[in-house]
């Protein structure tokens, strides 16, 4: 219990640090931030005249620049607690929270299946390679290594060029055909899947490679452990031994899965950018181009919270899964 509380305390501090960073960094821009921001936005081709004036007033209020600094911060925290992330510059007067809510499902739908499938297939293939050994292992390992070492956005670019430009099998942008509105029909679903294939593949291949490389080396490491020799000495078959190894090696891999899910939102922003696929990544890309600070802040905060939550859950459950952690050592040596 003390363990859980102290962990919670550390995570709360991390969260506070993130919020503080999130709050102060954009305010480090010299001068009156609202002036600067609106001016910068105007360069990016914003609105004119009265609309500009109205925006100016909104942001002045949101930033609360007429108040003392501490009050500004508390004000920000208050809004945050109510789920109010402010108003977007770029898509004025849309609320940041609404924009994010509209994009998030696309990101989750793209990444969650990719992470799960990549994790399952990758671990399975990794153990298989380690167990088989010989040339199977050598070539499989080389394959995994290649896949896992390609930067995921480079693979995305290569796939996009190969299968939608050079060989036009798949659409080259968007989440569904332009001009259609999302509705529930077989046609539309097929259309969505058609758009989904390439981005999904580009993620899943890299994930399989990474998981398999990790799992393989862990399995090989375990294969030379004393307890494996002991089981072997008592006639336990290699097949059964691989099972125990798999179980032992899975523990760290489970945390990997949780982390991957936690960092899902911020993990592959560029896939969406490359494929012009709707989602958080594309949203952020546009926000950065338009200097849309409230939106950028909202997204980074979301990414942080997701990662923190995943880490916190891992820390709490890891002790339950692994008996070795449960009994911490006392004393210096």
């Amino acid at each position, binding site marked *: 219990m003390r363990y859980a509380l102290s962990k919670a305390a550390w995570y709360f501090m991390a969260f506070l640090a993130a919020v503080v960073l999130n709050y102060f960094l954009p305010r480090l821009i010299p001068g009156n931030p609202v002036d600067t921001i609106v001016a910068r936005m105007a360069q990016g081709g914003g609105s004119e005249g009265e609309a500009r004036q109205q925006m100016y007033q909104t942001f002045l209020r949101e930033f609360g620049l007429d108040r003392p600094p501490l009050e500004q911060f508390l004000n920000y925290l208050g809004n945050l607690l109510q789920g109010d992330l402010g108003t977007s510059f770029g898509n004025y007067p849309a609320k940041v929270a609404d924009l994010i809510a509209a994009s998030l499902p696309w990101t989750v739908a793209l990444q969650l299946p990719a992470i799960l499938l990549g994790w399952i297939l990758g671990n399975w293939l990794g153990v298989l390679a380690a167990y088989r050994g010989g040339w199977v292992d050598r070539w499989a390992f080389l394959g995994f290594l290649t896949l896992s070492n390609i930067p995921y956005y480079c693979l995305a670019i290569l796939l996009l060029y190969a299968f939608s430009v050079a060989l036009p099998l798949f659409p080259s942008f968007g989440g569904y055909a332009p001009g259609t509105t999302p509705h529930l029909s077989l046609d539309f679903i097929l259309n969505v899947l058609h758009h989904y294939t390439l981005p999904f593949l580009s993620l899943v291949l890299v994930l399989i490679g990474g998981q398999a490389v990790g799992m393989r080396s862990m399995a090989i490491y375990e294969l030379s*452990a*004393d*307890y494996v*020799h*002991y*089981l*072997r*000495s*008592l*006639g*336990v*078959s290699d097949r*059964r031994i691989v099972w*125990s190894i798999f*179980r*032992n090696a899975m*523990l760290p891999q489970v945390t990997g899965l949780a982390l991957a899910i936690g960092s899902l939102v911020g993990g592959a922003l560029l896939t969406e950018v490359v494929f012009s696929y709707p989602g958080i990544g594309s949203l952020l890309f546009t926000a950065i181009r338009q200097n849309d600070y409230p939106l950028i802040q909202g997204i980074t905060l979301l990414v942080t919270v997701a990662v923190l939550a995943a880490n916190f859950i891992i820390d709490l459950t890891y002790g339950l899964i*692994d*008996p*070795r952690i449960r*009994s911490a050592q006392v004393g210096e040596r």
Partner: protein
Amino acid sequence: METLLSVKNLCAAYVQGGQRVRVVDGVSLELRRGEVLGIAGESGCGKSTLAQVLALLARPPLWVEQGEFWLDGTIYHLAQEHRLSRELRGCKVAMLPQGALNALNPTARIREIALEVIRAHQPKTTPQEAYARTQERLERLGLPVRVLEAYPHQLSGGMRQRVVTVISTLLNPKVLIADEPTSALDVSSQKAVVKLLRELLEQRVIEGVIFIAHDLPLLRNVADRIAIMYAGKVVELGPSREMVEASRHPYTKALVEAVLVPEPYIRQRRVEGIEGTPPDLRAPPPGCRFAPRCRYAWARCRELEPPPFGDKERFAACWLLEGMSA
């Protein structure tokens, strides 16, 4: 007495990078039914490698070059049968390793490990049956049943080693190969493990033990007979008491003399260790391998390898003994 296990002219070598280092060189031994045979020597004398070979665990880079292996009347040619049926391991010969903590899967409970071992040979055993058998065995040996639910790290060092002993003998192997099973333990835990081994022999769970250790006083108490190894060869063999009280080989004598025990004679004189180190087995010296460290060595020792003098019950390989009848 009846012979349970015997090896004849066993040679084993590590082969790596084109280099062949023979660490077990022409060893012949017999283990009788109901007996504990001790094997002693300094580190690097080949006793642990011998244990690996006897437990049928030799795998590259360790190769068995030659040797007959008789077990309960059946012969196995170790050099050819590399994948020597895993059915033998655990069932006919079982290994009792040194570090019990590392020998047990850290994430498995003791009952899960026991189940794994039983299922390796009787695949249809249900967890309940395995549990009941292990429980019964623990009770019969006077060990607490609660260890079944424990994880390895939750047991004390001494208890862990006894639990490993029980797991190794779950399938009633004929021969137990114990490789320094007590070296990491305190004397009281040592005693408990030794008592357990005796118990297992008396209850006929196992029929013979080969006990490998560097600790002569311990072997003197555990083993019925002791073989002394030096540089891959057995240099002397005999009943435990005689080996200590009336050893023949200068190496055995030096080992016995270097022993420090809380017995009054120790404080009355200066105890000397053995100078020098065992030879490099990549280039063993010609003649007697102990000659470079031997007080009594003369020219012949450095040229010709001494054969065993005596009979197969009591022999020593030293030129000093030539002409002495057994």
